[in-house]
């Protein structure tokens, strides 16, 4: 029973969800199932929070290398939790929409806008430099086939980047960039996505047929 029950539940709900895509009459069943999944995911988020406390609490307690960063993480998490709860309770007392105030209160929005977004944007800005350096290293270190691939990667990246710059009116470069994106890049992308699509469908079918059991016994 312990082995069969999770399998039956997975198969029944999986097939039901799949059938709703081809038979729209019973589509409302899918919405109910999705709502149930969202509720279960919310409980998983609580477990995720405990995991963060568990992992980083141990690191601080045992004074492992980098324990101070763990302390900063847990302290920030605690501060944000307290602020969110405070704004939610205040909104409730004042008769405002509590659920909305909890995540989009004044202080929470300030934290989001002036700390989280700038930090993430700074990190994202490093990406092009990181890739350029990685491509250069690939050219220097890889085998002959890798060198050809690395050279193609670097040349294509330079053409696409320069073709986008409005500084000079380089029409041939812009046309070449357009062609690269529209023809070889699109062809390769479609080929990869075709494989990914088939892989996803086959993985899902194996679960629906009961051949794969991602759930516990």
């Amino acid at each position: 029973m312990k082995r069969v029950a999770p399998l039956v539940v997975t198969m029944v709900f999986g097939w039901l969800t799949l059938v709703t895509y081809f038979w729209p009459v019973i589509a409302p069943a899918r919405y109910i199932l999705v709502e149930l999944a969202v509720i279960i995911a919310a409980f998983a988020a609580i477990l995720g929070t405990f995991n963060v406390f568990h992992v980083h609490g141990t690191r601080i307690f045992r004074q492992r290398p980098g324990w101070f960063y763990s302390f900063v993480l847990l302290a920030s998490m605690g501060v944000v939790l307290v602020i969110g709860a405070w704004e939610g309770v205040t909104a409730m007392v004042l008769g405002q929409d509590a659920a909305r105030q909890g995540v989009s209160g004044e202080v929470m929005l300030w934290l989001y806008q002036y700390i989280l977004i700038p930090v993430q944007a700074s990190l994202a800005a490093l990406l092009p430099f990181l890739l350029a350096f990685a491509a250069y290293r690939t050219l220097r270190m890889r085998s002959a086939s890798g060198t050809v691939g690395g050279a193609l990667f670097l040349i294509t990246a330079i053409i696409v980047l320069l073709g986008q710059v409005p500084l000079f009116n380089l029409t041939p470069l812009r046309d070449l960039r357009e062609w690269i994106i529209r023809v070889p890049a699109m062809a390769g992308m479609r080929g990869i996505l075709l494989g990914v699509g088939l892989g996803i469908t086959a993985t899902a079918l194996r679960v629906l047929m009961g051949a794969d059991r991602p759930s516990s016994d």
Partner: protein
Amino acid sequence: MDSSQIAGALLVVALGALIAVLGGIAWTGRRPTLRPLPGLEILRGQQDRAIESGQSLHLSLGTSGIGGGNTAATLAGLAILESLADEAAATDTPPTVTVADPTALVMAQDVLRRAYARQGNMAGYDPRAVRYVAASPLPYAAGVSDILSSEETSANVMAGVFGPEAAFITEEGSKQAVLQAAGAADVAPLAVMYPSVNHLMIGEEMFAASGYMDNLPVHTGSLLAQDIIRWLLAALLFVASAGALLQRLWGGPTL
């Protein structure tokens, strides 16, 4: 049902039937030779190498979880974890698994726990081997990079859903000179992973992990079914393109 729904339903039925038939044939003992996939072949024995070097293997499951549109990519990553987990449980050297979705956290912990239970070593199971790093892609990449730089890691394996931020992880892995194998369900992360990763799992290769590493009949059947359908679709696309080209050359109305 409109034409796209009919095509989708036909594809699902054809793929399902092929998996059942080819899985059945493989089950009778007639195992076909699978084409070599270097990205997956190097994963075999990686856990052993991690144990020998006294370091742990890092597996990143990406930013997706269970329940959304990217569930299959997460399941592919979990299949790789399942293959590595038995060796890890037998030798008490758990891999470090990082996730960015709490549903993936629960699933990954369950996969590890089952492996330890199978090996009769439940005392060695530590749920902290699976870490919920962050809820969004960039902080997740930053957190994983920190793990790679500050902890003794023998190899970095990535399988799941990633964005361009995957470059931070692979670049850190490259800096630490660890062996890297990575696959993703999208094209953008594959492009940024390419310069730093030793073995890239492109397209369906990531989803083939269970077939290569576990060698179960149904997985072998599934791989063959995917190959057959892909060749058929490629042939169909070629014929349609050639037909459209010829039609244009002979001056007929374009499709």
